[in-house]
């Protein structure tokens, strides 16, 4: 084996590793170091302190934003999985000659900006929006329903925006499933439902977990949708970070909130990975 060939795998790893180092590791280190710097009138003093974390974790306002981010992440992930699974199942199993077109259509929302899609929801849900106008013109309500800003609106907007990610992940899992296993179950007398519950669903669990994890992580750190469909009473970590960094110039607090967000997503990844390993071992 020549030296060049021996080096090739390292070179191939070096490119993404350098990218990760430059655009993830170094910024994360800067973020973490900034989060433990004391500030005076928004100007960093250079002294080290954990007060920023103390303030964020002891103030109800910030704790609520952290909790709300988790709720938004979990709820969006669950809705996406629930909606994406049947769609992915249909797309994988259909023998229609339009299959490719249907797959393209189901992923088409990705072609539109998330801002545009979110403003679509704003148009539907706002005080003078489509739902209120329809309900009022039908005489069902006198006063408009207040649907914005709300955590529910954020969850709806994110679930809609992230649905294609769930479909893609679950489709990949279902595509890798050996159909003869299902046929075997049915030939042994299991009905369609039993086959699905005992064979298909457990075997596609990694896709479900992957879809949930992906949408959870994106939803939890999403900024645009909570900023458009939320308000001061529905702040999440991402909107708080922006407020700290760009509006209040409180970079240490913003960095500490960023570190909490990063740690939360990492913790979930590690937990899922650990559960996956345990499942593989058993």
């Amino acid at each position, binding site marked *: 084996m020549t030296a060049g060939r021996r080096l090739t795998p390292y070179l191939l790893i070096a490119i993404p590793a350098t990218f990760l180092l430059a655009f993830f590791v170094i910024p994360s280190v800067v973020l973490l170091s900034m989060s433990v710097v004391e500030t005076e*009138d*928004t100007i960093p003093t250079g002294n080290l302190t954990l007060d920023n974390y103390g303030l964020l974790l002891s103030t*109800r306002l910030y704790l609520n934003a952290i909790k709300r981010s988790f709720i938004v992440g979990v709820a969006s992930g669950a809705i996406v999985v629930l909606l994406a699974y049947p769609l992915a199942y249909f797309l994988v199993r259909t023998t229609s000659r339009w299959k490719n077109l249907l797959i393209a259509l189901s992923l088409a929302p990705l072609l539109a900006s998330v801002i545009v899609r979110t403003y679509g929801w704003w148009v539907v849900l706002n005080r003078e929006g489509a739902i209120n106008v329809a309900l009022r013109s039908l005489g069902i309500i006198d006063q408009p329903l207040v649907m914005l800003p709300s955590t529910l609106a954020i969850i709806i907007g994110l679930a809609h925006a992230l649905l294609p990610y769930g479909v893609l992940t679950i489709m990949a899992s279902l595509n890798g499933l050996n159909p003869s296993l299902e046929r075997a179950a049915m030939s042994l007398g299991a009905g369609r439902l039993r086959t699905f519950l005992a064979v298909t669903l457990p075997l596609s669990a990694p896709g479900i977990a992957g879809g949930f994890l992906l949408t959870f992580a994106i939803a939890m750190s999403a900024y645009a949708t909570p900023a458009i469909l939320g308000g*001061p009473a529905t702040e999440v970590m991402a909107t708080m970070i922006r*407020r700290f960094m760009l509006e209040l110039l409180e970079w240490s607090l913003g960095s500490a909130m960023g570190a909490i967000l990063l740690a939360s997503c990492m913790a979930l990844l590690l937990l899922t990975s650990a559960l996956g390993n345990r499942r593989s071992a058993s």
Partner: protein
Amino acid sequence: MTRKAISRRGILRATTGALAAPYVIPALAADTLVVNGYGAEFQEFMMRTTIEPFEKKFGVKVTYDNTGMASQNYAKIRASRGAPGFDVAAELTPAEVILGQKEKLLEEITEAQVPNLKYVWAKSRTIIPPYGVVHGYQYLSLLWNKNRLERPESWANYWQPGAAYGDKIKGHLVAFEPANLLAVYALIMAAKLKGGGVENMQPAWDLLAAQKPWIGMSLLASDAAAPYFENDQVWLAPFWSARAGYYVGRNYPVAFTIPKEGTIGLANCACVPIGAANKKLAFEFINFRLEPDIQRAFHQAYRTSPGRPDLGDWPPEYAATQITTEAKLASVEFPDSAFIGSKRSEWTRKWQEVMSG
């Protein structure tokens, strides 16, 4: 089909070009100025009344960067250690100028660099340190929908809307977030209504808590409220006089007023970051902005008040709503921006607590 090979010489040439780029770009920048300011209608007036005449007079090219509010643009200056990519921060507020002085991120500006500095209002030199130039003023006003409401005589009309207008105004009030200085000023007026002030903001929080059920939407930027005023969705809000005047001029169903308790003024400041690529032209631009003709053209177009007191003969309809004399300037309050800056985080947190409670 011919196949084009990537030669070593080609790679070398491309690499040399890439490495040389940072040295070539400043060389090109000698006759290019990057000015950062607001977007929307502000940009339109700025281009027409100031930037185009500047380009013509000096034979240079101005690139206009319309991103960000004042605090966001200062964040860019801080993040880049004074080299944010623009040469003139054309629209900062006193709070950012004070921060810029403390953090040594803005150039000191003297009459040697900006000769027209000698003509600015004496008050301007007390509002900000000499690291910026006040090129104009505006003030906090109350903007209301003429078709829906009677003229608000007091700040209490906004802070206690039920008492002033009854149930009809429920859901038609706009609250601005304290990241926008106009929200901070409106809160100060609320505190004053009940005997408080910048030293005692508790009355403002009490009024905000009581006002909350009446608020239809809370917004960050004032221009975001424009479509809702236009389509009748919101009826009353604190607003900067300049933008309010613009909407009146555009025949929106609105009018603006200074309530009987008075108002707070905002000094619009221009600064030069320490790492600006073209400082000489940046100072020239700030000086040009204070020229009488440019002042007249811009401030009449955008409905802001001039940055110098020696420009007489204003049209009566303009003078009626603007700070054009020393007496008018004296009637407007300018709270200590350094103190407000030191309290802003705490007040924002309190505002969020009240709004989310």
